[in-house]
């Protein structure tokens, strides 16, 4: 389980015992980066599943490992100057193909085609020297052997589909000539031009105005319905999660601490960190005189992750479980209800009681 | 009338013979350092295909090396700068005097022979030496018959007269050559030159009774007039073709070669003159088909080309310091060198008009104090000069070996110096010594002298000035010397023509002292010396003249007016593949360019 990934292997064939059951299945994914200061364990044993047509939202603080996870799925860690140093292990199954052990060129062929990604800041994420149309054309022609004229038509089509007015003219504009919202739409157009079955959106609305935010989220939802793609939405904003997610995965310290359907996460959260996230979210239906309840302390160092439960230094309830277990034993994900899991040493009864009596009334 | 010499920035003959390649001294120093390092690793490519090995060191100073009558091929010259002019009437460089004879025949020239045998005058355009009359105030020359220019037209005596008129009397147009004719020809101060004076007669004191006779009437007796006409200024110029300053672009040749192309500042090509007739010219042989002169070639590159046998250094002032070090330590290469005198003296002038040096005993103290070996070392060692003890260098007629202030091993004699110092009533002297700031060897020599003098109680402080202003503004201005307590001045001198008069007059005659641009730095004004010089120049017998020059030398040394330091020498590298190489004293040790040929096709 902890051996380094094998490169140059053929696309992984599922064997009967470990055949993936979901469209996107991540099993015990670990992504470690050796640095001069030590080994950074950005993702340390992450597992989840996602079906087509569904939206999974990965939530967490900065440095929790959300983006690293998405880049790992895309296979982007092994590229570039530092690509040789990355240690990746575990399995990522996309539509029956295993990606971690696969030939990098096979993964490249999937990138931008079966799986696509949109990024947080569309201004810096698009090349400033090339017209939008040409960048979309490029994305299309990597995976389809067509003429530039045909690809250009497709690009205009996509721009229209994402709601950009006068797409025939705007196809020749440069990224800096768009407004923030239009730019993000254009990036979405570029990601979707090849009808990907998996769309990963890394904080797609963080850089946008609130009004525009809503439009973008609507767009993503519409497109998902239309193309039936699976969507992984990475965010730190629970409002976005509530709006669009079907399932939520809460990450902390490179690990999953809670996972489940969106309704359950919001109404019956089963982890002290999730309680903390919910408590720090401003809500319109609260008394303004009440103070927000932030989570005490700082996010953990990924080089020196706290022993036992990664959250224990900041958890108000760390002493409740017997003995030293929160400090010494890493909690495993345990089922709470159907599809709802939590990694916490508190008993389910304790968690339900604390939530119902202490936390929920204050929100 | 005494010759006026008001010095401008323009270098004199003596400065030109030490052509300092002034291109960024720091760069030169660095180039020198690098080349020094690398020269040790380099092998000179020996391209010689004719199988002859090097003739031995100094072979060309004794006889013609690689003598051959082989015709054909191209002879290449290279020069690191540009000459003042290729126009024979507008140049003052020894190498141009040498080279221009290929296309401009003067009345007289020097015999192509080795060493000081080359100082002998022979007739060139003239059929024999000049005939003096009227006590040496009138000189008559008869031109050879059948002389033609490159276009076939006849050369007449009028053309020689015109050449002298344009080169000496139109100083606003052609000013780069010497003006001896202007000084010595009768009425020379009144004639306005052929560009302003359009009369048919021109200068009255040059007469051309017929097409082959020319008569010069001087304002004084001058027995060495043959030397004066042995310059390119007497090479004929057809008046109809003269364009003043632009004549240089279309020179009409009277020699064995003519211009094929003239690319200002870059290259000059000469080809055979088809209308040259060997029957009228016992001197020239017209061996190569073509002669090419490449200008502005990097000095280090020239040394490489010379060693590879591909070119001759036109300037003829010797190899660069780095090449010298390499060549001297390599037995094979040394066999291809010629180390010759350059007809010049390196000396220290003592200001005879400044206290306490107006007292001869104080001057003698200076003579004895100086360690000449240290000076020789500072100047570059024995290769660059022999220790000097007389005014005249050994290759000038009139030289006689003598050493009035001999010291043991020429290292100086502090005791004797102190004796003479006491005799002139001093225990210490404080004075200033001048030197040229852009000549490192001169600075080093002056430093060596300062150290020698200190031991004897004479404290000299160095004052440095750039060569361009040395004579016009500082050392050559007697008043400035007096005002600034300058008792000692570094100097180098080579004569304009190789005779005692040519050498001594400008530096020892009282009349030569000028208010600025002075070359008689010692301000030596001895009545007996002055009279001797004037008598000599009026004496017809050569041996008698030479004896008088020797006498002048002795008197000068007895009066201790200057301290001779070294007899200047050049180190030339004799390139393989060239024929008829002979080093001649007439042109400061350069190879005689008249008949050099090539074995390469």
């Amino acid at each position, binding site marked *: 389980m902890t051996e380094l990934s094998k490169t140059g292997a053929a696309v992984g064939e599922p064997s009967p015992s470990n055949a993936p059951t979901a469209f996107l299945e991540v099993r015990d994914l670990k992504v470690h980066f050796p640095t001069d200061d030590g080994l950074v364990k950005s993702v340390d044993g992450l597992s989840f599943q996602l079906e087509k047509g569904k939206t999974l939202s990965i939530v967490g603080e900065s440095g929790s490992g959300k983006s690293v996870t998405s880049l790992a799925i895309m296979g*982007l860690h092994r*590229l*570039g*100057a530092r690509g040789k140093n990355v240690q990746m292990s575990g399995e990522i199954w996309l539509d029956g193909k295993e990606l971690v052990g696969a030939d990098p060129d096979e993964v*490249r*062929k999937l*990138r*931008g085609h079966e799986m696509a*990604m949109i990024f947080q*800041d569309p201004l*810096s*994420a698009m*090349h400033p*020297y090339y017209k939008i149309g040409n960048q979309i054309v490029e*994305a299309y022609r*990597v995976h389809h052997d067509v003429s530039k004229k045909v690809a250009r038509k497709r690009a205009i089509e996509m721009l229209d589909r994402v709601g950009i007015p006068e797409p025939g003219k705007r196809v020749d504009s*440069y990224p*800096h000539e768009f407004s923030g919202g239009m730019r993000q739409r254009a*990036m979405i157009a*570029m990601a979707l031009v090849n009808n990907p079955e998996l769309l990963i959106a890394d904080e797609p609305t963080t850089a946008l105005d609130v009004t525009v935010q809503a439009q973008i989220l609507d767009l993503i939802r519409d497109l998902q319905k239309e193309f039936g793609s699976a969507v992984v939405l990475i965010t730190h904003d629970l409002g976005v999660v509530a709006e669009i997610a079907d399932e939520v995965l809460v990450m902390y310290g490179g690990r999953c601490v809670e996972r489940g359907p969106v309704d359950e996460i919001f109404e019956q959260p089963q982890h002290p960190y999730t309680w903390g996230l919910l408590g720090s979210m401003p809500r319109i239906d609260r008394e303004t005189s009440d103070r927000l309840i932030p989570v005490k302390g700082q996010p953990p160092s990924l080089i020196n992750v706290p022993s036992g439960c990664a959250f224990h230094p900041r958890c108000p309830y760390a002493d409740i479980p017997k003995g030293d277990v929160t400090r010494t034993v890493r909690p495993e994900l345990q089922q709470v209800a159907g599809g709802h899991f939590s990694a916490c040493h508190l008993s389910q009864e304790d968690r339900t009681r604390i939530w119902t009596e202490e936390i929920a009334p204050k929100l | 009338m005494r010759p*006026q*010499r*008001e010095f*401008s*920035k*323009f270098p*004199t003959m003596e400065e030109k013979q030490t052509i300092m390649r*002034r*291109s960024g001294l720091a*760069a030169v120093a*660095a*180039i020198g350092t690098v*080349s020094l390092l*690398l020269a040790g690793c*380099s092998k000179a490519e020996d391209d010689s295909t004719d199988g002859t090995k090097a003739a031995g060191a100094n072979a060309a100073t004794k006889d013609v090396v690689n003598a051959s009558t082989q015709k054909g091929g191209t002879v290449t010259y290279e020069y690191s700068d540009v000459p*003042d002019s290729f126009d024979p009437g507008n140049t*003052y460089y020894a190498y141009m005097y040498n080279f221009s004879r290929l296309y401009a025949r003067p009345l007289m020239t020097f015999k192509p022979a080795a060493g000081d045998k080359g100082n002998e005058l022979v007739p060139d355009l003239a059929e024999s030496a000049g005939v003096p009359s009227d006590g040496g105030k009138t000189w008559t020359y008869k031109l050879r018959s059948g002389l033609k220019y490159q276009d076939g037209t006849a050369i007449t005596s009028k053309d020689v007269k015109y050449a002298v008129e344009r080169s000496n009397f139109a*100083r*606003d*147009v052609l*000013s*780069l050559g010497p*003006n001896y004719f202007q000084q010595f020809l009768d009425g020379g101060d009144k004639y306005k030159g052929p*560009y302003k004076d359009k009369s048919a007669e021109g200068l009255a004191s040059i007469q051309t009774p017929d097409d082959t006779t020319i008569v010069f009437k001087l304002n004084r007796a001058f027995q060495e007039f043959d030397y004066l006409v042995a310059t390119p200024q007497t090479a004929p110029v057809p008046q109809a073709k003269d*364009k*003043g*300053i*632009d004549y*240089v672009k279309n020179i009409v040749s009277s020699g064995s070669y003519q211009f094929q192309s003239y690319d*200002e*500042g*870059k290259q000059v090509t000469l080809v055979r003159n088809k209308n040259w007739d060997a029957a009228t010219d016992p001197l020239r042989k017209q061996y190569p088909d073509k002669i090419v002169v*490449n200008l*502005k*070639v*990097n000095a280090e*590159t020239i040394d*490489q*080309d010379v060693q*590879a046998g591909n070119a001759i250094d036109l300037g003829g002032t010797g190899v660069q310091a780095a090449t010298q070090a390499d060549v001297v330590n390599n037995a094979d290469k040394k066999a291809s060198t010629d180390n010759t005198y350059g007809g010049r003296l390196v000396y220290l002038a003592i200001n005879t008009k400044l206290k306490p040096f107006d007292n001869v005993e104080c001057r003698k103290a200076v003579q004895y104090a100086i360690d000449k070996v240290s000076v020789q070392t500072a100047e570059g060692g024995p290769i660059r000069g022999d220790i000097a003890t007389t005014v005249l260098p050994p290759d000038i007629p009139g030289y006689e070996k003598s050493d009035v202030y001999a010291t043991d091993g020429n290292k100086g004699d502090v005791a004797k110096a102190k004796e003479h110092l006491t005799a002139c009533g001093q225990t210490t002297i404080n004075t200033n010594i001048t030197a040229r700031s852009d000549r490192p060897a001169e600075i080093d020599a002056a430093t060596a002298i300062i150290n020698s003098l200190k031991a004897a109680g004479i404290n000299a402080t160095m004052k440095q000035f750039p060569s361009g202003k040395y004579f016009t503004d500082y050392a050559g201005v007697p008043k400035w010397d007096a005002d600034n307590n300058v008792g000692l001045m570094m100097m180098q001198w080579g004569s304009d023509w190789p005779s005692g008069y040519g050498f001594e007059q400008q530096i020892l005659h009282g009349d030569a002292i000028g208010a600025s641009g002075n070359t008689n730095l010692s301000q030596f004004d001895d009545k007996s010396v002055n009279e001797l010089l004037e008598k000599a120049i009026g004496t017809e017998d050569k041996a008698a003249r030479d004896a008088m020059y020797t006498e002048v030398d002795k008197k000068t040394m007895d009066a201790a007016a200057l301290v001779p330091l070294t007899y200047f020498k050049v180190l030339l590298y004799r390139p393989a593949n060239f024929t008829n190489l002979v080093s001649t004293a007439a042109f400061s040790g350069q190879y005689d360019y008249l008949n050099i040929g090539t074995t390469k096709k």
Partner: protein
Amino acid sequence: MISYILRRTFAAVILLLVVTAVTFAIFFLLPRFAGQTADQLAQQYIGKSPSAADIAAVKSNLGLDDPLYLQYWHFIKGIVSGATYDLGPTTVHCNAPCFGYSFKTHVEVWPQLTSRLPVTISLAAGAAVMWLVSGVAIGVISALKPGSFFDRSFMGVALAGVSLPMFFTGNLALLLFTYQWPIFGRTYVPFTENPAQWANTLFPAWCSLALLYSAIYARLTRSGMLETMNEDFIRTARAKGLRERKVVVRHGLRAALTPIITVFGMDLGLLLGGALITETVFSLHGVGEYAVQGIKDNDLPPILGVTLLAALFVVVANLLVDLLYAAADPRVRLS
């Protein structure tokens, strides 16, 4: 765009006028401040024993007696409409553009400049191509493998290249490749005459110059690439599934190269004004050598001519560089 170019051209002309004025001032005013008179200035142009009449004639020919502004005015007029110089038996008609007439070398300045410019251009352009290609290539490879043996060793060589002065590398190249092992030619011929020998003779000079500059370009490219390859749009390009080589060249190098091209334009412009030391070392009869000769002779017309030419090249290079940058980067607005 047109109005921008017009404005810049107008500014350039003003600048060139200022350059001439300053050069004039340096040449004539400074000696005056040092106490030199017009007579002494004129004397530099004559040989020995000048009489008062000679000096007066040269002074009038050179116009040294005129007040400075008049001399300057004559010079400007000459550029536009030509000038005439009376030399006694001949008269020189200097056709427009007349950059002056050198009384030392007795040739007009403009023909000298035009005949020497091809040599300097040959030297500069050839070296420029060499250093741009080699510098960028080394820089890209170093940036893609930072800290590797290639990176460290080539950056070390680059440092040496930048530190060694031309009169060292030039002479070294000449000694080794032209004399020690005669690989390259010694006599320059124009390109039109014999391209093979032209290139063959210039090759050591190109290499020496290129060594000096490619070091800078390698370092610039390396740091530019390192920075660019960390940009977000590179990640996006990879996310689109592009092959890595296309990502590096089309997306990375394209962005990193823009500032380098602009530096290149300036360097080339400066070099065209005359690579003085290189031309001297390799005995190339270019504009630089002409300048050196003029400086040694204290001869104003060549100095002025070369200074103006060099200023012109720099100004044009500046303008071209700005236009190029605007063409390369769509975010830049010409103002």
